[in-house]
């Protein structure tokens, strides 16, 4: 049972905008129930835990070992509690929500959304520990990546990390988000919001390697101003459940969004991607490519919606979801949708679900490559297409290794086919 008094205690002494937000979140939380499959947004997954069986972490638990592939962590969010671990690069301001809300309530209101449309978002608003705020000031180009290490470690808890990234006009930055957790049974519902001003450019790489007993319910919200552009890499490898609910608002004229993502599910993992891209400005473009593999009894879901508003003339929008189903017991569902209210658009969507192609295997065999190696080469190639495009190439090596490890384990256990 979540202890409501924790929210009450936290909001005491918080700046008004933050306290009000908590209060509203708490009210929404009290009015919410666990989602069921009757709800369109949760149609494809059967949540096998209930929030009432969990508790809230009151302090940060013991940190995990240092992550692989990144040199310097800028901020850590452990069980929802923020610690800034190094000096921010010039032109970058980092702090907690309380600090931001105290300094600049207007900015806080602009970059932290009022969103409580399900129990986890409401819970996040009500119970979030600190909230991490990253602001890159106008015209600043940050060379080094800002690495944020999000960890959930305490058994039996649900934690609510919340990160707001704001790029002022013409700012440019690269952010690496690591989502990790212990092997304990726990849940985590992180919310990441990115708000880009005019002409801002954000390169984001998000790598999810939750522990095997984690119920991960992630949310990402992106708002793009005029001529703003975001390139995102998304990696989903861990969790009993690894869900990402992504919504991108291309509000500004000339804004663009590019996503290259991959997931690999094994065992009984469920990896659920839900994406809504709202094209609202004129001359906007988006391109989404998500590739997934499932083996053993794992399941993946892709639900994508491209929505082009009536005034969004000269839009270009593409979404592609490609799935490799490697074992008989594994399952991939792909549901791409278009909702086009404007006729001046170039749009495309596609999805594929199937095993490795025999024609490809035959071509490799014709060059002397035996079946096992051919399968490895093809799976590696399948993922390399997106791994090569992750904005933070420093994490590409570890991601490639983990994907290969998963595949070789399946191959050695004879689970393919």
């Amino acid at each position, binding site marked *: 049972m979540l202890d409501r008094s924790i929210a009450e205690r936290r909001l005491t002494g918080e700046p008004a905008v933050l306290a009000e937000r908590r209060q509203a979140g708490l009210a929404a939380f009290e009015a919410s129930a666990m989602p069921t499959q009757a709800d369109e947004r949760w149609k494809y997954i059967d949540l096998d835990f209930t929030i009432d069986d969990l508790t809230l972490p009151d302090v940060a638990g013991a940190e995990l070992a240092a992550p692989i592939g990144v040199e310097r962590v800028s901020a850590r969010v452990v069980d929802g509690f923020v610690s800034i671990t190094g000096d921010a690069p010039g032109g970058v301001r980092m702090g907690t929500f309380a600090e931001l809300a105290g300094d600049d309530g207007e900015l806080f209101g602009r970059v932290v959304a009022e969103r409580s449309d399900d129990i986890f978002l409401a819970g996040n608003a009500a119970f979030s520990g600190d909230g991490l705020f990253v602001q890159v000031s106008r015209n600043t180009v940050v060379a080094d990546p800002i690495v944020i290490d999000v960890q959930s470690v305490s058994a039996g808890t649900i934690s609510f990390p919340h990160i707001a990234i704001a790029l002022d006009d013409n700012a440019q930055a690269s952010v690496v988000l690591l989502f990790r957790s212990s092997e304990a049974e726990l849940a985590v519902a992180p919310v990441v919001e990115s708000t880009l001003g005019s002409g801002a450019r954000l390169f984001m790489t998000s790598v999810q390697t939750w522990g095997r007993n984690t119920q991960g319910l992630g949310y990402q919200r992106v708002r793009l101003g005029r001529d703003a552009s975001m390139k995102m890499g998304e990696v989903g490898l861990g969790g009993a459940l690894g869900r990402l609910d992504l919504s991108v608002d291309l509000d500004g004229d000339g804004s663009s969004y590019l996503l290259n993502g991959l997931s690999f599910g094994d065992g009984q993992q469920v990896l659920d991607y839900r994406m809504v891209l709202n094209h609202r400005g004129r001359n906007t473009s988006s391109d989404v490519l998500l590739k997934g593999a499932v083996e053993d009894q794992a399941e993946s879901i892709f639900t994508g919606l491209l929505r082009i508003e009536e005034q969004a003339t000269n839009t270009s929008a593409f979404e592609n979801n490609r799935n490799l189903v490697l074992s008989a017991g594994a399952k991939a569902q792909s549901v791409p949708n278009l909702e086009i209210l404007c006729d001046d658009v170039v749009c495309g969507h596609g999805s594929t679900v199937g095993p490795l192609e025999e024609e*490809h295997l035959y*071509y490799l065999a*014709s*060059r*002397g490559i*035996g*079946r096992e190696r051919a399968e490895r080469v093809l799976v590696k190639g399948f993922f*390399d297409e997106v791994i090569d495009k992750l904005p933070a190439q420093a994490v590409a090596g570890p991601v490639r290794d983990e994907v290969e490890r998963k595949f070789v384990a399946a191959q050695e256990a004879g689970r393919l086919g």
Partner: protein
Amino acid sequence: MNLALEIIDLHASVGEVEILKGLSLEVPFGQIHAIMGPNGSGKSTLCHVLAGKEVYTVTGQARLDGRDLLGEPTDVRARMGLIQGFQYPVEIRGVKLIDFLREAADESGIEAAEVERRIVASGDQFDMTRFLTRSVNQDLSGGEKKRSEIFQMAILQPKVAILDEIDSGLDIDAVREVAEAVEAMRGPDVGILIITHYSRILRYLTTDRIHVMMEGRIVESGGAELATELEAGGYEALRSRLK
């Protein structure tokens, strides 16, 4: 001295339908042979059967450098030294040509340093260097795809190279380029068999012997004059002469 490729009384069928009906053929090392034949004569089936595609019921013999090919799976045949160039090479998105070649060469036991040396030398020779870090066959023109097939052979150095419909779909410049690439592959340790239904590529290539295939067997073998005869009178004229 063994022959590079020796085929004796080869029969192949799919279900009840017999496609190869007792085909015999010899390709010595160091030579380039061409098989010509009309559509439906079984040329592509011959390629598939030699490469070990699994849909056929096969009898007869096929030997590569004296070793039996039939019964071995495709990858083993390739490692024995039989490499086929496809009529329509498949595009493999994400697998870079250079990685693909390294994997294939490693599987065949070619030393890594030697592989790199060949990649540099042949990449230059066949103008393939700029394609090395691109996906295998992806977005290549017809001629580039054929050149890529020959480039791969230059790395793997087969004992028998079979090029299926080597000039189909190519414009005249590309045909000449591909012919030059085949000519460049000629050597004492390889027997080359090209398969075509047009004679035009033979204008740019010195073939040691031409074989005409009809209804699943070789009906006539000869020198360059055979191509000239076919060019003049087509397969019908040849068919009449043979009757």
